[in-house]
C-alpha cells in the first residue's frame, strides 16, 4: 500500500453560527485503499464530506492533495482536483438513459451536435473497467434499473472523469443482500484501480468487508483513524458511540471524568 496520502485534511473546523460541528478534524485518504468514515448520526460525517467537496467552506484547517496544499471553495474546485462525491440520493434523471446520465452536464459535442458514439464508447469502457456486466444495454433508461444498478451508474459517473478520490455516501443503505455485495465489490475494485475511496457507512459488516482503514468521528472530533486489520468490530462500535476504546480514541473528557459519559448523540444530522 502507498505510504503517502493522496488527500490529507488537517485541523478542519466548521461552525454553523454558534454550533461548532467539526473540531480539529484530520483525515488521510490513501490511493488504492478504501477508507471507511464512520460515526453516529450528527457526528459530522456529512459536514466533513461537504467541506471536502466544496459545498461548505471550512473555517480553519488545511487540505493537502497529492503533496500540494490546495484550497477548495466550490464544487468546481473539488471536481478539477479529481474529487467526486456520490450522494445518497444518487442524482440521476429517470427519463434519461445510462450514457446520458453519465455525461449529464459534461456532454461531449462535435460542433453543436452531441457526439453520442464517443460518449457511448467512453461509458462502455468505464463500465467495463469496473467489470460491470449487469446492464443489458447502455441505452436503457435509468428508470428501468434496479437499486444496485443505479448505484453502479452513479459510481461509474464519478469515475468517468479520471477522478482520483471518490467519496461514497452510504452506497448500500437502500440495497438488498445481493446488490449490496455487488456494490461493495465495485467499491473494492475502485481502490484496486488505484483510486482513493472514502466510504461512509453505518453498516459494520460493509466496513469490515471492504475497508483498509477506518476513521471514526465522534461528536465532531476524529476519534481515531486505524487500520481495519488492527481493530475488532466491538472496538469500532465503542469508538463510534463513546469516542474511545481502551487506549484508542479521544482522551477522557476532563469534566466528565467522574460521572457517566453522555452517550446520547445530538438528534439532528448536521
Amino acid at each position: 500500500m502507498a505510504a503517502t496520502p493522496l488527500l490529507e485534511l488537517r485541523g478542519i473546523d466548521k461552525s454553523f453560527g454558534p454550533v461548532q460541528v467539526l473540531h480539529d478534524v484530520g483525515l488521510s485518504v490513501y490511493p488504492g485503499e478504501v477508507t471507511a468514515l464512520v460515526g453516529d448520526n450528527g457526528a459530522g460525517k456529512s459536514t466533513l464530506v461537504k467541506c471536502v467537496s466544496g459545498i461548505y467552506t471550512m473555517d480553519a484547517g488545511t487540505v493537502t492533495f497529492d503533496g500540494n496544499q490546495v484550497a477548495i471553495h466550490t464544487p468546481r474546485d473539488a471536481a478539477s482536483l479529481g474529487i467526486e462525491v456520490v450522494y445518497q440520493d444518487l442524482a440521476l434523471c429517470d427519463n434519461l438513459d445510462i450514457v446520458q446520465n453519465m455525461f449529464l452536464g459534461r456532454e461531449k459535442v462535435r460542433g453543436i451536435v452531441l457526439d453520442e458514439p464517443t460518449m457511448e464508447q467512453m461509458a462502455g469502457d468505464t463500465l467495463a473497467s469496473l467489470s460491470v456486466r449487469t446492464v443489458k444495454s447502455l441505452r436503457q433508461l435509468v428508470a428501468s434499473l434496479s437499486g444496485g444498478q443505479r448505484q453502479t451508474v452513479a459510481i461509474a459517473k464519478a469515475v468517468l472523469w479520471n477522478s482520483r478520490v471518490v467519496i461514497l455516501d452510504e452506497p448500500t443503505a437502500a440495497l438488498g443482500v445481493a446488490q449490496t455485495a455487488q456494490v461493495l465489490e465495485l467499491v473494492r475494485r475502485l481502490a484496486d484501480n488505484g483510486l482513493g475511496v472514502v466510504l461512509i457507512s453505518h453498516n459494520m459488516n460493509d466496513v469490515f468487508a471492504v475497508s483498509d482503514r477506518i476513521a471514526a468521528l465522534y461528536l465532531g472530533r476524529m476519534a481515531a483513524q486505524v487500520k481495519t486489520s488492527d481493530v475488532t468490530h466491538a472496538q469500532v462500535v465503542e469508538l463510534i458511540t463513546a469516542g474511545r476504546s481502551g487506549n484508542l480514541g479521544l482522551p477522557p473528557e476532563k469534566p466528565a471524568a467522574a460521572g457517566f459519559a453522555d452517550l446520547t448523540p445530538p438528534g439532528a444530522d448536521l
Partner: protein
Amino acid sequence: MTTMTTSSGPVQVAKPTVASHLHDYWGRVRGGDIGSLPAILGLIVLCLIFGTARPTFFSAVNFANLFSQGAAVIFIAMGLVFVLLLGEIDLSAGFASGVCGAVMAILLTDHGWDWYSAIPVSLVTGLVIGFVLGFLVSKVGIPSFVVTLAAFLAFQGILLVLLSGGKNISIRDKFVLSLANDNMSVGLSWVLAIIAIVGYAAVQFMRLRGRAARGLVTDPMGIVLARIAALAVLLLAAVAVLTQERSINPLIISVKGVPIVAPIIAVVLIVWTFVLGRTTYGRHVYAVGGNKEAARRAGIPVDRIRISVFVIGSFMASIGGIVAASRANSVDPNSGGSNVLLYAVGAAVIGGTSLFGGKGRVLDAIIGGAVIAVIDNGMGLMGYSAGTKFVVTGLILLLAASVDALSRRRAAATGNR
C-alpha cells in the same frame, strides 16, 4: 482483503435482431412507455369512422383543409411541448398568438409595412412575451399556472386595446395570405417529398454506419429500412392525394398541390427535433424535466433553461398567430381565444407528451394536432354543433391525460420510471 481481478472489454450486449427489437418495444409499451401509440391508433379509428359516415371526409379537398385547419394549433402545440417537458404549463399561449397576430396585422394594414418587416416584429413580440413569463416563473418563483393565467387575461386585454376596442383588421398582404391558403406547384410538391425521404434515409444510414464503425450496437437493418419505407409511403401517398385537382370548376381556377403550410410545419419539426434530440440544450431540457436537483448538481443552469422554454413556447405561439391570421384573412378580438389554447395543450398531450414533465417529442404535437383537426373537421362534416365538438374534444383531452397518468403509474409499478 480479497482482490478482484479487473477484466476489460466491452459490456456484453447481444446484437439485436428485428424480432428482439420489436419485443423490446412491446416490453416498453407494456411497461407504461406508450408514447404516441394511442394517438396514432385513435387517429386511424377516427378516420375510419368519419370516412364511413361521410365519404367526403376522404376527399382531396377535405384532406387539404385539415392542414390549414390544424396548422395554427400545431405550431402553438410544438412550443407547448417544451414548456410541458419541464412540467410547467403556459395558459397564455392562445392569446399570446392573438397578440402577435394583431401586431403583424396592425403593422401591415394600419402602418403599411411590408411582410418582411412586420413578421419579424411579430416574432420578436413572441420572444419578449416568453422572456417575461419565464423570468416571472424562474427568477421570481411564481408558479407557471398563476403567471400564465394572469397573462391569459392580460393578453386578452392587450388584444382589445390593440384593436381599439374590438374592430376587425383585415389583411391584404399577398405573402401573408398565401402562408395558410395557397398551395405549392405540383412539381415542387413532389421534389420536396423526395428530398425529405432521401434526407431521412441518408441520416439513418449515416448514423448506422457511424455506430457500426465504432463497434457499437446498431438498430437492425430491417427496422431501419422499415422506418424509411413507412415515411416514404406516408409522404408519397399524401402528395399523390394533394396533387389531385381539388377545384370544383378546374376551368376557372385550378387548385392542386401540397399546402404551403405543410413544408413549414415539416421544417419547424426538423429544427426542434434536432434541438431536443441532438444538442446539449435539448439534453438539458429533458434533464431539468426529469430531475431538477440532479440537473442542478450536474452544473446545468436550471433557471436559464426554464426561461428558455417559455421563450420557445411564446415564439411558437407567435408563428401560430401569424398562420391563424393568414387563414382567417384578419385579426379580431377573439383571435387566439375560445378553443385555441385548449386545442394546443390537447394536441401536445394527446400526442403523448407527459403533463408531469420529462417525456415528450415535438412530433407529438403534430400527431395530437392531427387527432384534434380530424375530430373538429369530421364532426363538422357530420353536422354536429360547435357545442358537441367542444364536449367531445374535452373528453378526448381528458382521456389522453388519464392515459398519461395511468401509464405513469404503470411505469412506476414495473420500475420503468
